[in-house]
Structures are given as structure tokens and as C-alpha cells.
């Protein structure tokens, strides 16, 4: 069980959080092609290493935030607001 630093509540156990999967997915507009919409719904990278994802402190403050987690070591190297889109 990981320790996840909630930006508002501090470090808590993983079982208080909900993982929302890959972060920074751009929701296509209504006139997007079927292909664009399909990629938004179904296609995800599955990197070995650093991964940007979003989590919610479900049993705590209820806030969503972004996390950079290494999928191999589970090391969490950064946490930043949900509204922030960092340069890659």
C-alpha cells in the first residue's frame, strides 16, 4: 500500500484514494471524428516508468489532483493541482 501525498491533507495511505487513471486527457469537442473520440475513450499509454495520473482523496477532502508515479518502483516524484498542465 503506497503513501500518497494529498496536496491538502498531507500524506495518507493509498486505501483512502481513488485512482482516476491517466491525467491530462483532452476531451474532444462534439464534432470530433469517431477515431478521435474512440482514442479518447479507449486508448491509453502503458509506460514502464514515469506516469502522470490523477487521484482523488476519496475518504478525505474529496479533491482531485495530479500525481507523477513510477509504474515500476511506485515512487511518487511530484504532486500538482488538477488544473495545472506541466510542460512535458
Amino acid at each position, binding site marked *: 500500500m503506497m*503513501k500518497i501525498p494529498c496536496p*491538502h*491533507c*498531507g*500524506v*495518507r*495511505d493509498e*486505501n*483512502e484514494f481513488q485512482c482516476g487513471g491517466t491525467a491530462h486527457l483532452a476531451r474532444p469537442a462534439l464534432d470530433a471524428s469517431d477515431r478521435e473520440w474512440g482514442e479518447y475513450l479507449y486508448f491509453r499509454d502503458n509506460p514502464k516508468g514515469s506516469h502522470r495520473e490523477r487521484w482523488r482523496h476519496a*475518504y*478525505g*477532502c*474529496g*479533491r482531485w489532483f495530479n500525481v507523477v508515479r513510477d509504474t515500476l518502483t511506485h515512487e511518487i516524484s511530484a504532486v500538482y493541482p488538477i488544473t495545472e498542465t506541466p510542460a512535458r
Partner: protein
Amino acid sequence: MVDAHDTAERWIGGGVTAERDRTIQVASLRYFDAAQCAARIASALGGAPPAAGRLERHGLPGSAEPFAMLWRSPSETWVLAGSPAPIDALRRGLGTTEAAWLVDLSGGVLGIHLAGTRALAVLRRLGSSLSIPRLGEARTGRFADVTVTVAGWHADEYLLLVERVFYEHLVDWIRETLADLRLEDDR
């Protein structure tokens, strides 16, 4: 399935007392930005929303209308009082502002006081040590598998606030824990 309803309101074991707070009133103060409405809240109630993770108690226990405010999230503070008066005062003071919204949750959130030198030992059996507040703090976390807001109320005393539907579940878990603490002491 008929549940056995526990009508008791006080449980003791291992030197720890758990007791339902019969009078507690709870209101949720919601806002988009705490700073924006802090002045208005302060003038209505005499206290500003606490900083993240904090519990602020106002008025002496036993004095006319003591109340407490505890931080729940960046957009929510809970106002706790022993009677409806402070919450009513806050509602009047806020008026029709668009900066803050008061939702009365009284009855929907129930309180349990956990007191005794081993109260901390009981909390450690309900949830993660990372979610247990120190004196003057309020932390919302996972205890007994449900969301519980725990406030460090006095030295060796915690106030547990839980959604009413899960109250019996939480009490059941606490009661068993106290019973086992007591058995351990008997050994």
C-alpha cells in the same frame, strides 16, 4: 435480516470511553474561496474558517454558545455547536451572499467522543496512523472502512464525526475494539 439495534450510547473498555454526543449540531459551510468570505463569516460568527487540517474552538466549554470550526476541504468548513443558535446566527449573518453557502447537516452527521489514555490505541485499530489528528487538528480519513472526520478535541480525547447511515457500523467496530482491549487488560 433484522439488525440488533444497540440503543446504548456509552461504551467503556480498556480505560477508554466512547460516548455519543447527543447535542451536537453540524453545519457545512461551503465556499469557492475561503479568504473571500472569511471576513463575512468572522463578523457573523466571531471566527474565521480554520487553516487546512485545523480545528478552532471558540467560546469556553460550558459558556453560553461555544462552537467549533473544523477544516474539511479547500471548499468546506464544518461548524459544530451544542445548540442550533450559532448555526442560526451564521445563517443570518451570511444572508444571501454568493460567496458562501451554509448547509445544515445536523442529525445527518453524528458525533462520538473517544476519551482515555488509550484513545489513540483505539483509533490505531480503526484506521491508519497517518489519518489520526493531533490535538487541535481535524483529519478526515478512512476509519472502520468508512469516512470519518476525527478532531483532536482535548488531550486524550477525540471527537469522531460520521455520516448517520454509518454510525451503527462505526459504533459496532469501536465496541468490539473496546471489548478486546478490556479482555487484554484482564489477562
